[in-house]
């Protein structure tokens, strides 16, 4: 287990270093370079020269990367002159809201996907299974923003249950739950098909296994068989699948936050993209990548804890 842990941690660190290296290359590949990106095209030559020296841009590139990485590890992600705020401070302000959006949606997806997938798997090839699969495929085949638009059309324009915008979210933290409902539902619909399809095929595979025949032979009831035996074994590969689905959910927040004016990292990213504020864009991408890598690592560790075959394999 320790060896597995060490190897997996090593991989995660290597991936994070590669992410930072790619971001560093982007930082220097951007039009006009780092200084122009911060000061804008109309900065005076003196200002450019001063900031160039200030940022240590006269040093050799590997040294610059080292300094940049050192700063990164210490939470110094650069400064946005446009917002007159450090990038780290902006991230700390916007991140919790995205975390709530993504986290609640993620939990909801799992809560919905497991029973749905098990139900479908146990009734595979029947009409109801086809109907549910059809519905999920339809959901899967529409871009996220259209799913959101349809929800807005039904729940805020026709029924007027929930507001169509979340722009005021976070003003009075915790009380404004109703603005969260449509964004969370949209995000959940996006990943539901991915998860339930996976559980469905996993359940079908397991139902054909020898242990199921044995359990049936000794008289285990159908429900107990599904919950106690099949579900447990089907969930194992599902745990590692969670890590793969994380980028899907995180990418979904970009679209949803833009659609609903939800003041999270996605909207901050979109604004930064409009004004070409690269330090913010890179900071957000870095933060989200760390999140995905950490999530992947946790999922793999959970997998190894649950399944001894992985640990010693």
């Amino acid at each position, binding site marked *: 287990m320790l060896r597995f842990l060490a190897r997996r941690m090593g*991989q995660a660190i*290597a*991936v994070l270093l*590669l*992410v930072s290296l*790619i971001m560093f290359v*982007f930082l220097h*590949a*951007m*039009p006009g370079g780092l200084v122009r990106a911060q000061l804008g095209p109309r900065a005076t030559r003196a200002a450019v020269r001063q900031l160039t020296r200030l940022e240590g841009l006269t040093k050799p590139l590997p040294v610059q990367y080292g300094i940049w990485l050192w700063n990164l590890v210490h939470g110094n992600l650069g400064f946005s002159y446009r917002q007159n705020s450090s990038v780290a401070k902006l991230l700390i302000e916007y991140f919790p809201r995205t975390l709530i959006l993504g986290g609640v949606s993620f939990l909801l997806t799992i809560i919905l996907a497991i029973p749905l997938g098990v139900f479908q798997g146990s009734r595979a090839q029947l009409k109801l299974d086809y109907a549910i699969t059809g519905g999920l*495929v*339809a959901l899967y*085949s*529409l*871009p*996220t*923003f*259209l799913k959101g*638009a349809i929800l*807005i*059309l039904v729940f805020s*324009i026709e029924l007027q249950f929930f507001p*169509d915008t979340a722009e005021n979210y976070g003003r009075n933290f915790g009380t404004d739950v109703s603005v969260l409902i449509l964004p969370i539902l949209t995000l959940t619909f996006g990943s539901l098909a991915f998860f339930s399809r996976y559980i469905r095929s996993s359940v079908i595979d397991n139902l054909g296994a020898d242990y199921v025949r044995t359990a049936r032979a000794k008289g285990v009831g159908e429900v107990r068989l599904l919950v106690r035996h099949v579900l447990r074994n089907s969930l194992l590969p599902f745990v590692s699948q969670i890590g*793969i689905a994380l*980028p899907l959910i*995180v*990418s*979904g927040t*970009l*679209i949803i936050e*833009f*659609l609903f004016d939800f003041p999270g990292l996605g909207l901050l*990213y*979109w604004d930064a*993209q*409009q004004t*070409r504020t*690269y330090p913010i*864009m*890179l900071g*957000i*991408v870095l933060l*989200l*990548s760390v999140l*995905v*890598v950490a999530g*992947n690592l946790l999922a793999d560790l959970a997998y190894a804890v649950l399944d001894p075959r992985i640990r010693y394999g």
Partner: protein
Amino acid sequence: MADASVGVQTIGWARWRKWRQDIGVFVSNRAALVSLAFLVLIILFCYVGPLIYRTNQTTATLLNASLPPSSQFPLGTDPEGFDVLGRLMVGGQSTLEVAFAVAVISTAFGALIGALAGYIGGAVDSFLMRLVDTMLAIPFLFLAVLIAVLLSPTLPIVALAIAAVSWPSTARIVRSEALTIRTRDYVTAATGFGSWHLQLVGRHILPNTIGSIVVNATLKLATAILLFSAVSFLGLGPPPPATSWGAMATVGVQHLYDNNWWLLWPAAAAIGLTVIAVTLVGDGLYDVAARLSRDAK
């Protein structure tokens, strides 16, 4: 075998028979067949349609803004006065072209990386796979937007940006297949005959993974349409007056409250139905590929 030419003929005949069997497997999947027909219709609609149904798609006519469907405009007009039916054709062209380019580029690149990693193994494999992990760790939509914005978002660049975030999954699949293929006897034999590494990858590894590569490319086509729509929604689609299905649906979303259904639903249906059709064709091809790999064993 007495005569060499007879042997060649038999091989040709066997190939033809096998080819027909493969087509038979695909045709027996009704959904895949219908989807393929639908895709052909969509392509005809987008490329032949504008030759028959001529509309002005370059200059806005604000006098005709947001008209409901009528005999003159079968699907109405958008807020800039463009005919929506004609616009679906033009928007479809850019959407299909970007999706096709993404599928080809990302599949080719991913397959090459995967085949090299799986075939060479060792440190090269570790490095390439960490690169794949890295690309999968950076949320793809954020990365695609970053690349597009850094390099100025023109249509080819947007296609390249989407391809840049789409290749890693292909690389993973092809690598795992290459790992098993390189232990096969014919690869050992080819090595014994003195084949170069690149020759081996090109002649034996890649052709033997072609089944899963084609299936994967089809699915890439579907995700590329969705990703391009998402990018269009974020304002990085083709610059006006050019458009895409995603950009058209975005106009519909912006006018949700005006009840102008013809702005939203035709474009949404075009995206959704095309993605479903491509996915079902991919399923049909998967059946064929599964059969191919069964035969190979």
